């Protein structure tokens, strides 16, 4: 049956898409976009089909080159990885639909390599998610990172500097990961995740793997922009082209968060990281600080994208908090927030793209009622996503916070409860500021394009924006099904 190959089809279709679309695009520029879109669609299709397949038949192991795991590389698609890979490719596909018009306006003449880079980016992230091998993860991490630097670098004038700093920190992160992996490999003699999971509990000397775990976590934390290591993120997100940040913000850091979950709970065991040694506590406390720090910094920003970037720092904190609580509810909260935040941030950055496409502004003081009159649907999408960020039911954001609060209460950690509540209110401040501007402020300092009579952005840009906004509500209302039928299956062993 051909369908058993689906784990490999996801990254390979994207890779092939990149390999074909770039050379073909140099030859005939118009062909790039259809090829890229098709490749992305294939990946999206197989990710969704794969999720259904995995839910029906259980975890799927795919041995690359037909070598049994510790000898060769394996792909493991369990409910969690199928879920995350679907998020990656779903967001990727719809943002790619969106990107066509936006790119043509923002970075004309660079569409061909841009689409190829995006495909590589998605392939790297998909590969990171489905792989069951720690070194293979590093390779795909590098593919994703290199493309991420590129996505940042083609933005405004200051973008290359942001990309360069991102590159330096990203390389340090990857190097730390590699070094930590080296220590782990020297201690266990294996690179396979599940194999390591079997070996680690039997080890007598623990010092080495503690250090290797620390190094790997620092490396992944850098990629994930966990609180003290988030310094690259604000610049990178705010100077990137709007499509670039629409790709980066929703999925790049989330996949790193997924990797962190994998390393902590699959490779190392829950008891090991949360009871014998308090790794998870450190993560949780750092994340809690990050939540507040990100929210407060976001309030201080006057640039829309920069504000979203800082809000990303705080939202990543939620995921980190869920991971760090290391109980089933926290895990549910973290994984659900990976989905929710991906959708919310995608909406918000697409809204940014729409506004930039029409008016060429990202500065919040410039927003006013005219903008909303010209872009009514975009503003509606923004409002929904903003309410979700604040955590108003029935939007999705409420429910991930709900699980996180439950988890914190369950752990009897009231400080985290307060942090989550406080950050909701801080989110309220910086999002309602914009909502007020959009719906109330009357002054007009926008140069309106009256002649063209074109109000909303083109349909290919509008549809993804609205789709994500609707999904924010949809996944909010139906979150229990996702939690019960997908995430609960993925709760790691030993979590109580």
């Amino acid at each position: 049956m051909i369908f058993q190959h689906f784990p490999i089809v996801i990254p390979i279709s994207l890779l092939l898409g990149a390999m074909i679309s770039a050379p073909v695009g140099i030859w005939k520029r118009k062909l790039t976009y259809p090829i890229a879109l098709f490749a992305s669609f294939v990946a999206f299709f197989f990710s969704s089909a794969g999720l259904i397949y995995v839910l029906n038949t259980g975890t799927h192991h795919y041995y690359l080159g037909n070598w049994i795991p510790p000898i060769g590389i394996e792909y493991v698609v369990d409910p969690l990885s199928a879920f995350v890979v679907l998020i990656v490719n779903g967001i990727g596909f719809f943002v790619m639909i969106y990107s066509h018009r936006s790119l043509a306006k923002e970075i004309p003449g660079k569409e061909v390599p841009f689409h190829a880079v995006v495909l590589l980016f998605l392939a790297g992230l998909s590969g990171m998610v489905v792989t069951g091998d720690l070194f293979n993860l590093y390779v795909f991490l590098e593919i994703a990172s290199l493309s991420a630097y590129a996505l940042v670098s083609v933005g405004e004038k200051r973008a290359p500097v942001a990309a360069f700093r991102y590159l330096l920190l990203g390389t340090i992160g990857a190097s730390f990961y590699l070094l930590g992996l080296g220590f782990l490999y020297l201690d266990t003699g294996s690179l396979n995740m599940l194999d390591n999971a079997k070996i680690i509990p039997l080890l007598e000397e623990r010092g080495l793997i503690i250090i290797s775990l620390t190094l790997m976590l620092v490396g992944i934390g850098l990629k994930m922009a966990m609180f003290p290591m988030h310094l690259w993120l604000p610049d990178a997100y705010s100077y990137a082209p709007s499509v670039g940040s629409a790709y980066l913000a929703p999925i790049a850091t989330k996949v790193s968060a997924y990797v962190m979950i994998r390393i902590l709970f699959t490779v190392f065991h829950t008891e090991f990281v949360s009871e014998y040694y308090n790794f998870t506590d450190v993560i949780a406390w750092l994340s809690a600080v990050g939540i507040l720090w990100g929210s407060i910094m976001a309030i201080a920003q006057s640039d829309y994208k920069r504000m979203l970037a800082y809000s990303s720092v705080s939202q990543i904190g939620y995921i980190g908090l869920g991971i760090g609580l290391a109980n089933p509810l926290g895990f549910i909260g973290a994984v659900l927030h990976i989905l929710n935040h991906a959708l919310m941030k995608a909406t918000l950055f697409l809204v940014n793209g729409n506004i930039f496409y029409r008016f060429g502004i990202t500065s919040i003081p410039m927003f006013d009622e005219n903008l909303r009159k010209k872009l009514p649907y975009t503003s509606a999408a923004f409002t929904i996503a903003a309410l979700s960020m604040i955590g108003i039911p029935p939007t999705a954001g409420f429910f991930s916070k709900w699980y996180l609060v439950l988890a914190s209460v369950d752990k009897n950690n009231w400080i985290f409860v307060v942090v989550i509540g406080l950050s909701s209110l801080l989110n309220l401040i910086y999002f309602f500021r914009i909502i007020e501007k959009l719906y109330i402020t009357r002054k007009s300092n926008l140069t309106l394009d009256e002649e063209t009579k074109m109000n909303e952005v083109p349909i290919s840009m509008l549809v993804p924006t609205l789709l994500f906004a609707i999904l924010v509500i949809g996944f909010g209302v139906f979150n229990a099904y996702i939690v019960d039928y997908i995430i609960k299956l993925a709760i790691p062993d030993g979590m109580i």
Partner: protein
Amino acid sequence: MKLISYILLLAFGILLIFATSELPSRGHPENPINRDTSIAGTPGAAAHYIRNAEKETATPNMVTAILADYRGYDTLGETTVIFCAGIVVFLILRKQKDGSKI
């Protein structure tokens, strides 16, 4: 501030030295990476390669056998990284004008 950074760097070095002191002395055939089977009973990859590379892939150079076959997918990724770098440099430095080939 700078002093603190230096101290942090130094502390990191000391941490690593502490870590390496726990590493097995290099070069011994019985080190974990060289074992036939790991302590959990799963086969050790490296020993398998050394024993079977010639038999299974007809390639005496074990590094090549691993690179292109046992862990061939890594190498595909590696080649993709290089390709990716090429595309990225293309993206950063080139700009297609209408009608131009490059």
